Structure formats: structure tokens, C-alpha cells
């Protein structure tokens, strides 16, 4: 079974400051990793994904994440946030060996609150 832990339920940050949202996963098999963003009253939108290859993954809106297999982490970073980045961020895991369901297991989410 797989699980995802997002250690911070809320992260307040000032505009133009850097931010890191933490994600740790647990899995006994190889993983695919995802970050999704949910703006208020909307569905989830993919920010970035790691399937294989380079461990540094760049996504939309200036976000990036680094896959660290030894620490089982996939932290999301942005060097300078904007008010418009205020949203809920979800880390999710799947596995290439799960050829049946291909389902995502989600963390509980981190609410990023960007203040002026």
C-alpha cells in the first residue's frame, strides 16, 4: 500500500518570498509522483509530475519539485510567490506496477496563503 504525508496543513507566506511545500511518501514499489493545485471552488489541476529521468521537475506557474528517493520526498518549491498562488496544494502518488487501477493516493493537502 502507498501513502502520502503532507506535513504542513497551512503555509502562510508573504508575496515575493520563496516557499517550499513538503511531501513525503511511503511505497514498497517504484512510484510516480504528482502535485496538483486546487483554486477555491474549482477542480484539481496538474502542476507537475515525476515519472522517471531527471529528479528535478519543472511545472506550470514557476513551480518545481525534486524527487529524492533516499528520503522518499517530493517537495514543491517556488522562488517567488504571487497573491494568485493562494490555493490548496495536493501531493499524490501512483505506481507503474499498478497497471490495474492506476489510481492516485493523495495527501491531505497544504493550504498556501500568500499575504501582501
Amino acid at each position: 500500500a502507498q501513502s502520502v504525508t503532507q506535513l504542513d496543513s497551512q503555509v502562510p507566506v508573504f508575496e515575493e518570498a520563496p516557499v517550499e511545500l513538503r511531501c513525503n511518501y511511503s511505497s514498497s514499489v517504484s512510484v510516480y509522483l504528482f502535485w496538483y493545485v486546487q483554486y477555491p471552488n474549482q477542480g484539481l489541476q496538474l502542476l507537475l509530475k515525476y515519472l522517471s529521468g531527471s529528479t528535478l521537475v519543472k511545472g506550470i506557474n514557476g513551480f518545481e519539485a525534486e524527487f529524492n528517493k533516499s528520503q522518499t520526498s517530493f517537495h514543491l518549491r517556488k522562488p517567488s510567490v504571487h497573491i494568485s498562488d493562494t490555493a490548496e496544494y495536493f501531493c499524490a502518488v501512483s505506481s507503474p506496477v499498478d497497471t490495474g487501477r492506476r489510481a492516485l493516493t493523495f495527501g491531505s493537502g497544504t493550504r498556501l496563503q500568500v499575504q501582501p
Partner: protein
Amino acid sequence: NAGVTQTPKFRILKIGQSMTLQCAQDMNHNYMYWYRQDPGMGLKLIYYSVGAGITDKGEVPNGYNVSRSTTEDFPLRLELAAPSQTSVYFCASSESGKSYEQYFGPGTRLTVT
């Protein structure tokens, strides 16, 4: 492409009533999913489908049913609504390739009182 669409956006049910949440996708994806999102809990998988005519249970299937008669549509049925089913419901779809990326609809906010 409209992507993944869901109706209704909001609904209030009384205990014991039934309803169907509609989900449709126009991307010809084989995989479709229903999740529920409770505050502070992330998303939990209710049911999924790997193609027309094939469905299976996820983590929290009790109180729900699904069908998949076409590739495009994947409705979720609540037979006897209970307050514990108050939640936001998301439908998602995914292609059969290597990506595993899921595309989400805008959600249905359901309140059972």
C-alpha cells in the same frame, strides 16, 4: 474539448433520498474515477472504471454505485443518502498511456441533511 464535466454543481438532499451525480469526458479516456473530498482529508477513491462495462470498488465504496455503459459517461449513484455522504465529489479521467495523469472535473458539492 470540454474535458471532464460534472452536474450538478451543488445539491442538497434529505436523509434517505437518492440521486445520481453525472460525469462525462470527451477525451476518449478509458480510465475514469470518482473521488470524495472531505475537509482536511485529501481525496479518497470511491469507484473506478478501466473501460466501458468494467467497474470496481475503491477505498470507500459503501453507499454508492456506478455504471459505465459508454466510454464517455460514468455516473455515480447514491441510493439512500446519509449525512456521512456530505462531501465534495470529483470525477476524473485518464488515458491508457504511460502518463497516469488524471484530469479532474469541477466537482459537485453535496449536502445531506
